[in-house]
Each structure stands twice: as C-alpha cells, then as structure tokens.
C-alpha cells in the first residue's frame, strides 16, 4: 500500500517541516518513506513544496505525479497541484488564504481555515499542524499517538510550543475525521 502526498504553499508556512513530520511519523511506524523537497530558486514569499511517498515496501520513484493527497496552503499551489490529486484522492485546502470555491466530484475536498484555527492556538505558525491533523484525521495513515510522540521529539527543544502545536493538530484531526 503506497500513500503519495504533495504539500505546497508559501515559503515560511512550514510546508517542508509538515512533510518532515509525516516522514518521521512513517519511520516511527516502521514504514518506508521518501521526502523530496523542491529546492529550486524559491525564496521567502515564493512557493515551496515537497513530495512524500509512504509505503510498506521499498519505494522506487520518489517523484509524485498522481497523489493520494494534496495539501495546499496558498492559492498558487491550489492552481498548480490540485490537478495532481488522483481519482478518489484527498485535497486539503487552507481556506483562510484560499476562499475560492473549488469543485471536483471525483475526490474528497476538505476546506479548513488553518490560519484562523492556528491563531486560536496561539501562533499562526501552527497552520501546518492544522493541515497535518486534517490529513491524518481523514486518511488514518498514522495513529494519533505516533504523531504525538513525533511532536514531543521534534519540538523537545521548544517545550513551550508543544501544547499549541498539539491543539492545532487536534482541531485539524477532528475536522478531517468528519469528511
């Protein structure tokens, strides 16, 4: 079983670190994983994306053309990456920054005001965790315990941030589960 994910947004929205959390969670659950960032001539305010492949078997191509899930944090990313969601896949849209209506009947579209929810948890920087929550809540790829453990490990140097981060994840998770 392979799960291919693309995450995209502005540089600074935590797109690459969101992808890394997914990668760390995959390792935690003894799965194979590849995390491939776009490292092109992007800059702050420019676009950034990464592709993640999670699998039970050894992964051949780390390049994702047809994704099981696409997570978009800003509008240019919606335009560029939404066509890559395959039939029956998931598209998670940060509707705080992408108010546009988006219709595709062959996939599950989750609209989530990630920035607004993140601010409720104390920092707009948690928007990527809201998106991660929605992804895990909908796809069930990882257990909540795994994510919780990964957050504890990766943010061990900044313990004050952890409650807000977990809260952001939980908000997203509960919304994701409803879809």
């Amino acid at each position, binding site marked *: 079983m392979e799960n291919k994910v693309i995450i995209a947004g502005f540089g600074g929205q935590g797109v690459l670190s969101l992808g890394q959390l997914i990668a760390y969670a995959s390792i935690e659950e003894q799965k194979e994983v590849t*995390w*491939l960032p776009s*490292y*092109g001539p992007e800059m702050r305010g420019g676009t950034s994306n990464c592709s993640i492949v999670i699998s039970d078997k050894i992964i*051949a*191509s*780390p*390049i994702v*053309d047809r994704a099981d899930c696409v997570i978009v944090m800003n509008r240019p990313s919606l335009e560029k990456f939404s066509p890559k969601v395959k039939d029956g896949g998931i598209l998670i849209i940060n509707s705080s920054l992408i108010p546009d209506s988006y219709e595709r009947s062959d996939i599950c579209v989750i609209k989530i005001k990630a920035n607004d929810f993140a601010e409720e948890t104390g920092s707009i920087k948690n928007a990527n965790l809201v998106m991660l929550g929605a992804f895990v809540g909908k796809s069930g790829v990882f257990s909540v315990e795994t994510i919780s453990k990964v957050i504890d490990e990766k943010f061990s140097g900044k313990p004050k941030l952890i409650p807000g981060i977990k809260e952001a994840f939980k908000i997203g998770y509960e919304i994701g589960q409803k879809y």
Partner: protein
Amino acid sequence: MKQLMKGNEAIAEAAVRGGCRAFFGYPITPQNEIPEYMSFRMSEVGGVFLQAESEIAAINMVYGAAGSGARAMTSSSSPGISLKQEGISYICGADLPCVIVNMVRGGPGLGGILPAQSDYFQAVKGGGHGDYHMLVYGPSTVQEAVNIMYNAFDKADKYRLPVMLLGDGMLGQIMEAVELPEMKDINSFPKKKWATDGSGIGAERRVINSLFIDPDSLEKQNYNLFSKYELLKRDETQYEEYMIEDAEYILVAYGTVARVCRSAVDILRGRGIKAGLFRPITLFPYPTDRLFKIADKEELKFFISVELSMGQMIEDLKLAVNGKKKVNFFGKVGGNVMSPEDIVDNLISKIEEN
C-alpha cells in the same frame, strides 16, 4: 536502527565512518549540506575541515593531503567539479587515492540548481586532460550511496585512484531512512608505503609527481594507469537487473532516474507490457559485457536509455549493445525530472513507432 537523513548528510556521515579525516570544499547548491555537516563532524573525529578560497584550491588541498596518506575528499556540483578537473587529472597522474562527490545540477555554464545527469561524460571519460579514468558510482538511493561511500576510501586506496560518487540534486536533497554502518577503525587501514608522510626516511625515496618528462617513463605510467582500469573492469563492475528475464523492452538508467524507471516498469507490467530495467551501479567501469549478452535475448525488441541529459550514457550503451538491438533514448533536461507516467507514455509511443 534506521534513521531519517538527508542524502547529503548521510553521505557525509558514511564518509566519516569509512575513514575520511580530511575534507576540503567550497560551497555550491545542491551539495552544501556535505561541507556543512563536515564542518562540525571533522572536528569531532579529529579530522581536518577546510573551506577553501575556491574549488581549485580545494582539489589541490585534496591532492596534498592524499599525497601525505590521508583519507581526503571533496564535494561539489557541476560548475565546481569543472573547476576541479585540472587537480583531478594531476591526482590521477600521480596515482593518488581520494573521493570526490558530484551532486550534478543542470548545465552548461552556471546552468541551474536542479537535478541533472549531464556530467556523465565528464565523470566517466576522464574530465580533465590526459588518458585517465576514475572509479565512478551512480547510486540510486540514499542507502546505496551510504554503502558505496562507506567503502569508497578502501577502493581508492586499493587502486590508488579517485573514486567519484556521481549523484544529482535529488539524491542530495531527498530524505530517506538509512541504516548507518559502524565507524571503521582508522588504525586498521593498510599502511601506505608510497605516502610522503615523513616515515621511511633513509629507505627508498618517495616522490609524489605527475610530471614524467621522459617519454618512455610517461608511456609506462599510461600503461600502469590502464592496467588498473582493467582490474576495475574485472573486479568492480556492478549493476542491478529488474524484471529483465522475459523483457521485450529494457529501460537502462542509473542514479535516481533508475528509481523512476523501476516504478514505470511496475506500471507497464500491470498493463501486460513486458518491460524491464537494467541499472548500472558503476558507470566506470560500465557493465558492457553483461549488456552485450543481454542484447542477444531473442524476445528483446529494444533498449531505451533514460537520462536527465540530451543523451550521454546512451553512447556507452550503444557500444555495449554493438548494433545487436535498437537503442532508443528518452531524456529530460534543465532540471526537470520525468515521472514514471512520462516514461510509460514514452515507451508505449516507441512501441507504436517500431
């Protein structure tokens, strides 16, 4: 235990564990994590890290360190590797071991910073002036790159020549789970009786030199170098085959592109098309003999060389196949990378053409 590591960092750590104790480099994307990692790691293991003033300086520091017997390496990306060519030629001429990493980016000129395989010719045909080769590997996963790097200094020392790890931006930037090998004991490495390290005073004079002004001496040195390449061909050639038993169409690819091809083979097999993958792991020596044999297979209709270039490895593939079967080409350049689906579409269109 497996851990998640970026390709560049995993390669750097594997070099340290393989005995590297001298690193000289100069920054360039997409390999900056290697010198960054070495900048703290070398001091932890009692080695030398130096950010040189230029690529030319860096490779000449490698030349000097290698001459004194150290396990020395440098890393760079395409434009930087071009600058190092003079030094590489001298190192080869002087029979010195070292390790060089090239995380290839698109060219020519400054080109771009995204993945490419357009330095294949430079890596396997010599690169600098004079008749010489390096032992060149094209790993396709981070784990394979780690395994190769771990033993690269042993190979370099054994044959007294540079070993090049030819990657691309993708291999450098990707994160994957890797199992790191144990640290090698640097005291266990064979003594270098040729090294100008201050030992052996009063015994036979040791000279590190690539100047052979007497034609007969230089001719002898050329033959000496090529006798080593014959040993490489015999003992070091490596490749991997995937589903080629009954294949009618064989994709030939190295490095990260080979992974994309492997996924393409799976898709094609799912559609009932008998595709297979041949993946050279050593690029010099190229697995010529094996490909020559494979080309005899009756059911085989054609090969496709799949590369991130305008067609470089295809020349070695054609030499190996020696006209026995048709060799097609599919490439992407500029930093763009093909998806498995692109390869599937290309193969199907080639089947229809033929």
